[in-house]
């Protein structure tokens, strides 16, 4: 063996040893998360938690639907302690399936009753509406003179054909919230016009709305923030996504703006503790910490409207009161999910 060969071999083994050392660091006190959340904010919150308690936090980031599937598949032997983020529709579904543990969190007292489980199995801790992200530069170049969409009907105009992006209801929570919100928006209209079964009428009208939308949409993205990225980078003029994520992107300096039409979908992001997780004590502490004003203030920096009324709303964002969210039945949204998604498959088919 030549000298150089020995050197290279030593380098490789050093690399190996280094990697081993890195991956087997001591882990006595920790809490494991499934997070449907953005990494920078998650890191800021967990760093504060670790500083306060000495408990380390590890996570997998994924779509809320994705993580729920994992929790179901791992029932009885969960791979994580806490599900963080994702709309409370998902948390409520998991609770109904008996997969969540009850948590006594003193900090939950400040959360309005409407946004938390009466049995203490899940808690909402922030809300965000769903709206349009418009690439104003592209709009001026491509379709000069066409007015920006202001209502949910405006986006159906054939002039937008090939310029619209939205989230897929099966893979991103927001896409499903949009579907539900449209059903309940039309339900409201139907009951106004005196339909007896306003929900069925509303659903029928909502499907017509989506079939019309489908004609204009180029891509239903698998995750909601993807839509904003694509519009910001100029791959489409209108995107449908979360207002908080849109505000983050506006701050980055892209030529985009946010419009939240009336009767907007909204989602409350939740947190819950998974039943039978490996670190229950640490998990309870973490859930309580996330509900605290301290962590909610960090979260507000990412433009999510905190549900703890003591915390001031995000700076530079419209007030929550300026939105007109459409109210919907949380339980109906959960129990009809499979049926609605099958219907989507049949009618929209992508």
């Amino acid at each position: 063996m030549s000298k150089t060969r020995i050197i290279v071999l030593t380098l490789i083994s050093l690399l190996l040893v280094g990697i081993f050392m890195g991956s087997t660091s001591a882990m006595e006190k920790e809490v494991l998360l499934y997070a449907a959340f953005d990494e920078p904010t998650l890191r800021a919150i967990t760093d504060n938690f670790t500083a306060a308690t000495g408990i380390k936090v590890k996570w997998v980031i994924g779509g809320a639907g994705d993580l729920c599937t994992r929790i179901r598949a791992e029932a009885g032997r969960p791979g994580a302690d806490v599900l963080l983020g994702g709309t409370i529709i998902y948390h409520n579904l998991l609770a109904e399936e008996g997969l969540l543990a009850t948590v006594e969190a003193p900090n939950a007292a400040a959360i309005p009753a409407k946004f938390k489980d009466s049995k203490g199995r899940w808690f909402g801790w922030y809300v965000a509406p769903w709206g349009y992200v418009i690439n104003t530069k592209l709009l001026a170049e491509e379709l000069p003179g066409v007015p920006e969409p202001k209502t949910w009907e405006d986006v159906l105009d054939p002039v937008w054909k090939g310029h619209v992006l939205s989230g897929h209801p099966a893979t991103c929570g927001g896409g499903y919230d949009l579907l539900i919100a449209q059903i309940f928006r039309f339900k409201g209209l139907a009951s106004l016009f005196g339909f007896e079964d306003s929900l069925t009428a509303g659903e029928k009208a909502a499907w017509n709305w989506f079939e019309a939308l489908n004609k204009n949409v180029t891509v239903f993205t698998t995750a909601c923030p993807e839509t904003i990225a694509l519009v910001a980078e100029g791959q489409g003029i209108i995107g449908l996504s979360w207002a908080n994520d849109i505000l983050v992107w506006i701050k980055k300096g892209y030529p985009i703006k946010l419009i939240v039409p009336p009767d907007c979908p909204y989602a409350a992001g939740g947190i819950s503790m998974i039943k039978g997780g490996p670190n229950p004590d640490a998990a309870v502490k973490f859930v309580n910490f996330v509900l605290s004003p301290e962590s909610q203030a960090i979260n507000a920096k990412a433009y999510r409207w905190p549900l703890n009324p003591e915390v001031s709303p995000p700076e530079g964002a419209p007030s929550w009161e300026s939105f007109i969210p459409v109210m919907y039945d949380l339980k109906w949204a959960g129990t009809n999910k499979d049926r609605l998604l099958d219907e989507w498959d049949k009618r929209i088919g992508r």
Partner: protein
Amino acid sequence: MRINCVVRSFNLQRLVTVLLIFFLAIFVLFPVFRILLYPKLKDYMIMLSRPGSIRAIKHSFFITPLSTLTVLCLGYIFAYAQHYTNMPGKRVFKFFALLPILSPPFIIALSWILLFGPHGFITNFLGIRWNIFGWRGLWMVQSIAFFPYAYLLIAGVLEGIDSNLEFAAGNLGANGLRTFWSITLPLSSPGLVNAALMVAIGVFSDFGNPILIAGGWPVLPTEIYRRVIGYNDLEGAAALCAVLLVSTLILFLVARKGLSSRSYVTITGSAIQTEKPLVGGITKWLMFGFCSFFSLLILLVYGTLAVGAFTETWGVNWSLTLKYWRVLRGSSGLPNSLLLALLAGLGASFFSLFASCFIYKRRFVGKQFWDFVTLLPTAIPGIFLGIGFLLAFNTPPFVLTGGLVIMVLSLLVWNIPLAYQANIAILEQIGPEIEEAALNLGASLMRAFGNVTVPLLRTSFLSSFTMGFLRAVTNLSIVIFLISPGQTTATVQILGSVRYGELGIAAVLATALFATALLIVGMMSFLTKKSMDIFVRGR
């Protein structure tokens, strides 16, 4: 005393064979059957009645031949230009041709969107309008992503062709084109068929590219993913997985059959003429132009990423920044990916070393079957393997989920056939004589293994380790189902960053992964004293 020794080694040999078979049964057959038996007959019927499934199947059967044919043409021209011309820059072209192996394939899709999207760089520059989301974009991206594999396989065959025949044709008055049609192309056809089937399996089970670029155009693997994560429908997903597996299995069986029945490439003891008749004139420069164009395209794809890693905000603020590189600190993705890949690569190479000696070279009842099982993972799509491991090892008797172990094992299994085939290719060329000679001279089977077979397989061990390492470090479709908190991989992190629109972070991770892979390949090729030739040529 002597008899005793023989008996002991005989038992040891048997024990090794039995252990290998056990491993195969648990980690190859068990997950496969777990998936196939998971859906009930009813679920298969529902799956077939669902328009979404039918559409995905149709799309898959449309894009696979299209992308495969394109890849073959590209690969053939590149390989031919390498071996049959003396054009300048051959080494540079070869380097560029192999680059896509070093990165997760879906990185190409990401870069492609930035360049050729409706308002991408190139699109704006050329002032044209097209929609790359859908099959067109997928077709182009897959053509680049799978091109190196076709190139390697075809180059290996072209190299093996005895040029005496081509020179003879030339001497008999055939012109260049005629020689090509009547000698070179027919002689390379078995390799071409093999490359076609291998690429087709890859394209058919490709997950990363379609999920990024073909959002509105589902293919089988993305539809399976959507059934699992969107619809929580493991039964439906497993039923679709079965369709995927049966299709790739048929391709795989055809490939095996086709190759065993005719082999034109003869490796005999006599000297083989490797000096090729060179093509000159216009053809040469046309090929030069083609290779330059394609290499530039690849450079553009990776250059875009490298620029993205240092850019403040893509498309808006072009000032340079290092801030995204901070993600590497405290992130477990990259070290995990490297560790996984090292272990999986080594494991697969070791396993195959033993398997080629204790399964392939031995005669026992059911040998053919286990030989087949060893090669079976070639035909198992990544997404199938991931779900199979998830279903098989999440409940007793084998509980492995929630750690690195299950990821290492799945990637190891996935890499076995590659290493096994490389070993067999060498053992077939050598013939059993040397080992028999050792046995006749009184060596035990174990000793013959250690002193004869292992040294012979040293180069194939190193090359299959390198290839296994690269495949594992760039894998997304298997690990995406097996990650757990704190145990994620770079590829999953990249996909996550793309989905949250964090292009800078995705570009940094991709660049770092790419650089590390390049470093490892550089080291390995230095160790084996052969430049990029260490890549497995396969059979």
